[in-house]
């Protein structure tokens, strides 16, 4: 593995991180939005969201990325590979995060809401000041766990030609006829990236637990 190869792998790693972080940044709030629709039991929408989430959760990322990349142009929407990759991962993340947010919302103590309502707090303020901080804290471990899962399916975007870490490693292996070293480097990249998320989760959980006992 020479310098050029290291550079290609580094570029791949940067793409992996960029695709994942963008998808997380888009998918997490969208998931919260869907969870709120289900939580407030908007008539009609509730069932549609539940069905969509169930379908998306059952769909492999590879299949979804192929659909997004090849089907959107047939309805006149040409999007670049990278954007198609981000959109796909964000859709999956949205579906999983919806369930996580919903679980946190369902576990939210009802009496706090009643109290806030009794004090005449408007709906938006109630959500922002009372609900969100608490459900965010409760959902955090599951959200971080979901982020690591997203990074692990992110190589799916290689299928439509986005050169992320895995695809970069495959190309180097094919060019040098020695696949093991680039694969091991790619593996190390994932271990570092995912390890960083898991370590953050551990720290946050510990802080949370200490906070609960304090």
């Amino acid at each position, binding site marked *: 593995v020479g310098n050029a190869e290291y550079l290609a792998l580094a570029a791949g790693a940067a793409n992996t991180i960029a695709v994942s972080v963008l998808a997380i940044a888009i998918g997490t709030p969208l998931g919260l939005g869907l969870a709120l629709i289900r939580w407030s039991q908007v008539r009609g929408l509730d069932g549609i969201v539940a069905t969509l989430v169930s*379908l998306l959760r*059952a769909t492999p990322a590879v*299949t979804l990325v192929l*659909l997004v990349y*090849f*089907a959107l142009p047939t309805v006149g929407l040409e999007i670049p590979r990278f954007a198609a990759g981000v959109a796909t991962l964000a859709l999956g993340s949205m579906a999983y995060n919806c369930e996580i947010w919903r679980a946190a919302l369902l576990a939210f103590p009802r009496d706090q809401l009643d109290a806030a309502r009794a004090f005449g707090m408007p709906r938006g303020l109630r959500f922002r000041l009372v609900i969100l901080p608490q459900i965010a804290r409760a959902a955090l471990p599951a959200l971080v766990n979901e982020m690591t899962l997203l990074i692990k399916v992110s*190589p*799916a975007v290689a299928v439509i030609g986005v050169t992320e870490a895995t695809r970069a490693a495959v190309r180097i*292996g094919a060019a040098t006829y020695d696949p093991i070293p680039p694969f091991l480097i*790619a593996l190390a990249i994932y271990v570092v990236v995912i390890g960083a998320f898991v370590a953050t989760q551990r720290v946050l959980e510990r802080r949370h637990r200490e906070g609960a006992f304090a």
Partner: protein
Amino acid sequence: MIPHGIEVLWEQRDAMLSGFLTTLVIAAVAAVCAGLLGLMLFALLISRVRAVALALAWLIDLMRCVPFMLFCYLIYYGLPSFGIVIGNLMAGIIALTVYNAAYIAELLRGGYVALPREGIEAGHAFGFHGWRLLLRIILPPVLLASIPMLGNQMVQIIKDSAFLVIIAVQELTFTANEIQATYYVPFASFVCAMLLYWALCLMVEAGVRVVLTMAEARR
């Protein structure tokens, strides 16, 4: 355009069905093998041989940081470097089995850790040791508690199997992609594949519910 896509898919229904059955068989075989291998790894994880248990726990943690697609490539392109030559279908099944066995061993360990110690100590007191202790005393409650998680892992295996398209295993996504490329009906073919994956996952979920009610009834 969409009616045309459905028409094409209807003409290609045999190909689609064969892709679906391939996915079904691969997932089923990998699930059984991963379950058995996962059980063995779990037995080693909780064994008294500390060095083995620690090394294995470390390996499993490592595996949980590896994307399945990378692992799949590693098996497919890596094994020949060690003189082991296998076909793409075999490589895919091995990759699915080993990868998910690590997750299954870990989720069983989670169930074991949450188990009350009294039952196991009682088993010891009644003279259960080694394999008999594992099979008769430890495994039944651990498996019972792990049923929903094992169902989730089964869904994961089904979804992971789509990654085998990269090593040209002719499963559902591969078939959908071939039909899409030949007849230019991406929307219909991939949505059809998605619906079939969905059906599989819903069947697993229903199966989990049935097993749970059966377990509840026998308790």
